[in-house]
């Protein structure tokens, strides 16, 4: 089983707040609570990026957190995906031209999926995770990733 299969079947998700307001953080933590429950899709929130296949980044990327983000990203497994959550994570949002924000998240690390919103609803974040799972699935059929491919 290659590393790709882990994103296809059960991606482990890690969260990095690069200087946000905690709003997106709350919605990401809400993912593991009973109403949203991403464990239905085989995903777990992990505190260490080393254990994770998908990195969720929120916040406007302050100068202080930039090195830490790159450091955490490098320690992840080779086949990794990044989701930028919130308008700050996507473009810098209202903080874009302030004094300690020089670069956006996608100028520092490659971003595979953008989830805009302030903050985006947990359903939107789940949608992004599931889309990444479908993308990595060979059959490319929607919904198969969530259920798993039958007969294999």
């Amino acid at each position, binding site marked *: 089983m290659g590393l790709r299969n882990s994103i296809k079947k059960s991606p482990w998700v890690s969260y990095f707040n690069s200087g946000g*307001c905690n*709003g997106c953080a709350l919605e990401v933590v809400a993912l593991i*609570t009973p109403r949203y429950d991403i464990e239905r899709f085989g995903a777990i929130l992990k505190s260490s990026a080393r254990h994770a296949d998908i990195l969720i980044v929120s916040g406007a990327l302050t100068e202080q957190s930039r090195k830490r983000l790159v450091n955490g990203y490098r320690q992840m497994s080779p086949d990794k995906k990044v989701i930028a959550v919130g308008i700050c994570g996507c473009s810098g949002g209202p903080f874009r031209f302030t*004094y300690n924000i020089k670069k956006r998240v996608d100028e520092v690390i490659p971003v595979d999926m953008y989830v805009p919103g302030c*903050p985006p*609803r947990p359903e939107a974040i789940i949608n992004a995770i599931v889309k990444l799972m479908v993308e990595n699935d060979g059959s490319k059929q929607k919904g198969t990733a969530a259920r798993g491919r039958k007969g294999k």
Partner: protein
Amino acid sequence: MQRVCGICPTSHSTAFLDCVERGMKIDPAKKVKLLRVIELELERINSHMLWTGHMANILGYKMLFMFFWKEREHTLDVFEKITGGRIHHNFSKLRSARFDLTKDMENFMLRKLARVEKKVKGYLKTFRSDSIMKARLRGVGTITKDGAERMGVVGPVARGSGVNIDVRKHIPVYRELGFEPVLEKVGDSYARTLVRLRETLQSIELVREALSEMPKTRLPKWGSFAGATFESTGRSEAPRGEDFHFIKAENGIIKRAKIRTPTFSNIISLEGMLKGREIGDIPVILGSLDPCFACMERVMVVKDGKAEDMSEEEFRRKYVGNNIPSVCPTH
């Protein structure tokens, strides 16, 4: 102003509006004040339940964490129904609010709050009777009344030590609703937990009273910030304590803003609480302060153990650059 914090956005917008309205000498109508009370108290319910769930998680009660966050979703539903946003509400406006509550919204709110109240009462009983909770929390991270006053802690941390400090008791509209701060005497983590849970129930009561006293008048028109020149302060009681804003504006443009967030005052007391405790108690003590690290991110340049002291002009030249509008750093 809401984007300062994701957990207590309303407290920041209320403190900011309090500040601007004082500076522009506007006194909002009673209806507007009551709407702000409702929004603030709903936020307090939300934040305290979030915190208690987090605390249960620290203590090893994963199930209780899930229960609390499940109930919290109901308060978020109320927010979504009223304001349209789950986390950031943007409900208050200068001198007014974005829109009035309809009968449908009120009924929805009361129904959801009744459910939350029933559940929180049950959880409060758990916290009061469970021996493991008591063993983990009692006597851990004690701060005496004297110490709390000296450290200048605010919010539930101070009230857990028996210091009668609360911004709400100085606000006339809260006094009319018969508000009394919730106090505990002991000052350990257990007392702080009980203060927060009891405040949740109190906030539900306050929302109900505010709804029953709501005048049936129409909302006033929104005010405009254009051309205002003032220098003023405002405050509100955030779930974590006193939230203080200072704004200096010239011709409708904010020249200087300083926000003193509650966690910034509370985290100082951590050192005294940790003394003589075991490593395993650190998460409990730090958690019991309800720290919001977004609240604590402040610019302070320290070199060789000395804080760098510079004027506004020097700061801008060194760190901000000339072409960027003056976003004011605090400190």
